[in-house]
């Protein structure tokens, strides 16, 4: 039988009250307040290319405390996993034709056992320099503490956001498609930007980008997602394995 939840809440509140000042790169709701409905920006930028912005965001997110849980064969992996955190943000395109990255949030679903990891990314970016409807959404960003593939919630999230913001945006470097990425590091401390998983709804592609010292950045097609209903509730995932090549499927 589980104990009264309120006493743990008291303990948690006490712990939060004595915690250090919030990292200025992060935003969170006030204690007891509802989840954030928009996330402020910018944190990083402006950038001329989406790639440069993406890699800057990867390094920034993975530099945050407990963004990586390290390897599962480590004797303390269970502990590392419990204390690990997901951070999320938007990479967006501005009316000045630049790419920017919003601030980060780690607001998430509460799990007393600390096994469930999640991040609640607000649907809107609030950049005081621009009207809200002039911002275009390019990448939903987050980290996976153990480099795992994108989850079904991740896939549903980005399709849902595409319905709101659009699945494609015209930029100064051409048309770019909305996608979601999950960064990962192979090491825990210090974490580094070693790769990311990516899903692009308009093409159905699941990709895995990895960086090695010898080959630089490489891209692998790991799967294809097919939606079976207009509400994007049910999908199937076909696993694939092949390099990313223009004009050729794996």
């Amino acid at each position, binding site marked *: 039988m*589980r104990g009264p939840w309120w*006493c*743990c809440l008291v303990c948690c509140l006490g712990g939060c009250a004595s915690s250090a000042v919030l990292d200025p790169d992060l935003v969170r709701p006030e204690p007891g307040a509802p989840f*954030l409905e928009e996330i402020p920006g910018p944190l990083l930028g402006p950038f001329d290319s989406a790639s440069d912005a993406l890699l800057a965001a990867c390094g920034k997110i993975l530099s945050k405390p407990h963004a990586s849980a390290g390897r*599962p064969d480590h004797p303390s992996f*269970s502990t590392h996993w419990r204390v690990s955190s997901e951070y999320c943000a938007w990479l967006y395109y501005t009316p000045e034709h630049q790419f920017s990255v919003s601030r980060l949030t780690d607001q*998430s679903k*509460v799990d*007393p056992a600390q*096994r*469930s*990891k*999640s991040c*609640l990314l607000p649907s809107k970016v609030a950049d005081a320099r621009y009207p809200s409807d002039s911002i275009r959404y390019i990448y*939903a960003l987050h980290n*996976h*503490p153990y480099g795992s593939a994108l*989850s*079904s*919630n991740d896939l*549903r*999230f980005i399709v*849902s956001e595409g319905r*709101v*913001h659009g*699945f494609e*945006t015209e*930029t100064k470097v051409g048309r*770019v*498609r*909305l*996608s*979601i990425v999950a960064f*990962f*590091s*192979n090491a825990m401390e210090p974490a580094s930007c070693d*790769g990311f998983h*990516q899903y*692009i*709804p*308009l*093409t*159905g*592609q699941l990709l*895995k*980008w990895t*960086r*090695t010292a010898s080959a630089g950045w490489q*891209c692998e097609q790991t799967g294809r997602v097919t939606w079976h209903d207009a509400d*994007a*509730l*049910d999908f*199937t*995932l076909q*696993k694939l*394995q*092949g*390099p*990313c*090549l223009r004009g050729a499927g794996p």
Partner: protein
Amino acid sequence: MKRLLLVGAVLCTACMRREAGPSDSLTSEDRSVVFPEMFAREALTVGAPGQPYSLEGSLLRAMVVAADDFLPRHQEGRSCSSRREAHRFRILREGDIVFIRMDLDPRACEPGGMLLDGGATYAVRLSDGRILRRLHDGEPDGALVPAGSDAGVHTGPSDSSIPVGDTSWGEPQPSFPVQLLDAGSPHP
């Protein structure tokens, strides 16, 4: 003051002991259970109006056990995402084990209620209703093969002209539901 601190410490310790269930630990579960691909095939949706369905009691018990564990009743008031009616359940049976996938329904907590990750798959034995293993989003699936990149890419070199993270080079998917495209404004 010392007495107050002592009482607080005892209270917290008691809470932690009670909140942590016997199988909350990653190491206390049956790691030999291999989770199947839950999305390899299209699922049949239960609940069509006028269509009767039958369900074995052991399967119902397994689903209730999984839901009670992942979405405890005493936490349902905390937020929309903690309610079981805000979730979608996907089940796949293999012999005496049923695998139960639980995800937040994207329509349930709008606006602003969509989670990245946060779902889980449970393996429950049908014959006794025991949870054999849980796999939360992001956790290693047990094969101890790093999902990260240090194993390298074994599929040959990719096209070096594709910028990192670029989304423009793939072919559009013809089967993408057109209804989903009828939203948003693609041009600034």
